[in-house]
């Protein structure tokens, strides 16, 4: 892979969720778009502050719905095909198309496929698994982001980004530290 030029971005470390959300809101308001917050637990306000709204996006929900429908229809179709055409069994003259009995496996497969789609859909939309990511290069990231620190990363890909100005901007929120993140 060719080496990318420059840095990935600047990452500011905060002690509390409140400081992080304030900084993220201000960054969004002053025109930054390519940025992300890193928190040790789900923090809805942080996602809102950087302009990401999952309930509106509904990505995972959509994948889950489609998966569920496919699973349910596939099983019901299989049962119908098996019972009527592939291997008809006449048991005490009961109808071949005994749909009430077919509902149980179709119901289970709806849940199976919907659940698998939700889980794998979430991973795919998040671009996970991703064993490597530039933010891991920040020396203070590893011990903080998954434990007790709150990070805001302004990415260099943002048109508004400039190392000196963005650094001054982040430092105005009095973070614990601001460090450059290498690719």
């Amino acid at each position: 892979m060719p080496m990318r030029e420059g840095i990935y971005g600047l990452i500011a470390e905060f002690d509390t969720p409140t400081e992080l959300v304030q900084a993220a809101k201000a960054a969004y308001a002053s025109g930054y778009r390519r940025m992300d917050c890193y928190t040790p637990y789900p923090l809805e306000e942080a996602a809102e502050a950087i302009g990401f709204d999952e309930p509106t996006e509904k990505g995972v929900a959509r994948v889950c719905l489609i998966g569920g429908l496919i699973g349910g229809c596939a099983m019901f179709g299989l049962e119908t095909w098996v019972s009527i055409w592939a291997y008809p069994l006449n048991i005490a003259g009961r109808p071949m198309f005994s749909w009430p009995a077919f509902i149980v496996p179709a119901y289970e497969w709806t849940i199976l496929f919907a659940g698998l789609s939700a889980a794998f859909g979430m991973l795919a939309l998040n671009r996970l698994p991703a064993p490597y990511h530039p933010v891991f290069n920040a020396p203070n990231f590893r011990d903080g982001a998954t434990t007790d620190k709150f990070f805001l990363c302004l990415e260099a890909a943002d048109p508004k980004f400039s190392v000196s100005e963005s650094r001054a901007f982040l430092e105005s929120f009095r973070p614990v530290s601001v460090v450059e993140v290498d690719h």
Partner: protein
Amino acid sequence: MATNDVSPQDPVTNPGKNRMIDPKTGELRVLAPGQTFRSVTEKIARIVLTSHTPLGWLFGLVMAGGLVAMMLTAVMWLFLKGTGIWAITMPVAWGFAIVNFVWWIGIGHAGTLISAILLLFKQGWRNSINRFAEAMTLFAVVCAGMFPIIHTGRPWLAIYWLFPYPNTMNVWPQFRSPLMWDVFAVSTYATISVVFWYVGLIPDLGTMRDQAKSKFAKYIYGQMSLGWRGSARHWMRYESASLLLAGLATPLVLSVHTVISFDFAVAVLPGWHTTIFPPYFVAGAIYSGFAMVLTLAIPIRKFYGLEDIITMRHLDNMAKVMLATGLIVAYGYGMEVVMAWYSASHWEYFMFWNRMFGPMGWAYWVLITCNIVTPLTTLWSRRLRQNVTYLFLIALVVNTGMWFERFVIVVTSLYRDFLPSSWGTYRATKWDYMTYVGTLGLFTFLFFLFIRLLPMIPMSEIRMMLPQAKVKHEAELQTEAGD
């Protein structure tokens, strides 16, 4: 809540207890006060990441391993000799295998209830116990799933035809049979439980990766965490996936024991052919499951000093859930008797009389004592609900009672059928007992491995519950500055 009137303890003589009561509401706290993000993380991660393996843990693992060896012996003998080594014969053709299957699956249900249904109801207290309750579900399903497979005696000859695939014989399964429904219900339940559990683990595996000191642990947890980095966008999708999985697991868990009860209810046998079975099986499953969660949680919190995270509030709440589901189960037992009388069916009536007062009536009365009389008269008492030793004992009693419930349903409905000439009895063999006790060992063995290798309490969810996790709004910040 009934803890309102807990008498204010003298903080000098009893600081521990007083600390756990919220002065604002007078209720028991869900988490002990004064904990930080780092302190809870370290407390939970340390149990796994320490290089010191407690002797007690090793002892437990070896004991459980011994039982697993016994189970493997019994299963190997079964495969060599066939199901003739078990006590099943006419008229009791369903014996320990189905009893244990239903019992284990039922135990699993509490894990899903805690992780899914209580999440939908926003019951924050579930966070401390959901991870290991879910692990309990998985291991219970492993034990349960074993029985239908081994009860065929020759699993390699007798399981594949349950799956619908184009085989060389051109034979397809019969989808109108509850046995087929079972295959799909249980396999879906196992798969979704694994997925839900693993999705819940991902952020914590990220924490483990970052907390680990050894290179090997860093690598393994790093791979398992899939590169989780706690991005705000990821968290939001993660939360919606968790919520969807919870929403899907809820109808699933209710359907699984319902489908299992169909195995009985669809048959036209007195004692089985009854419409109350689905709801009463589900309630019984949750009842026994919560008993098993208590059986595991009480020794673990003591052994690992987790009383600040798995608090009295949790134990008290679980005891209340047991009380509620126990009452539903009691209603089920009552209704069975009423229907046997009200149906005016001679066979129903006789079956019930025989179940209560026949040669195996003792099993019925053990079940009534363990499931109804002991727990449902005492769990009303707050003092007893908050007595850890008593709760542990009552959990063991309920586990026993629920096993007897399955035994009574299976055996006493079968052993004296319509023709007195075909009456028989049932007496389990040593192989039956070895297999059953062996699965208890397998369950414990897997559980011991789990608490040593993975964080048994979801760290990210505990952090979320700490008071400092909330974002303060402008107004709050201003009042603070004013102070």
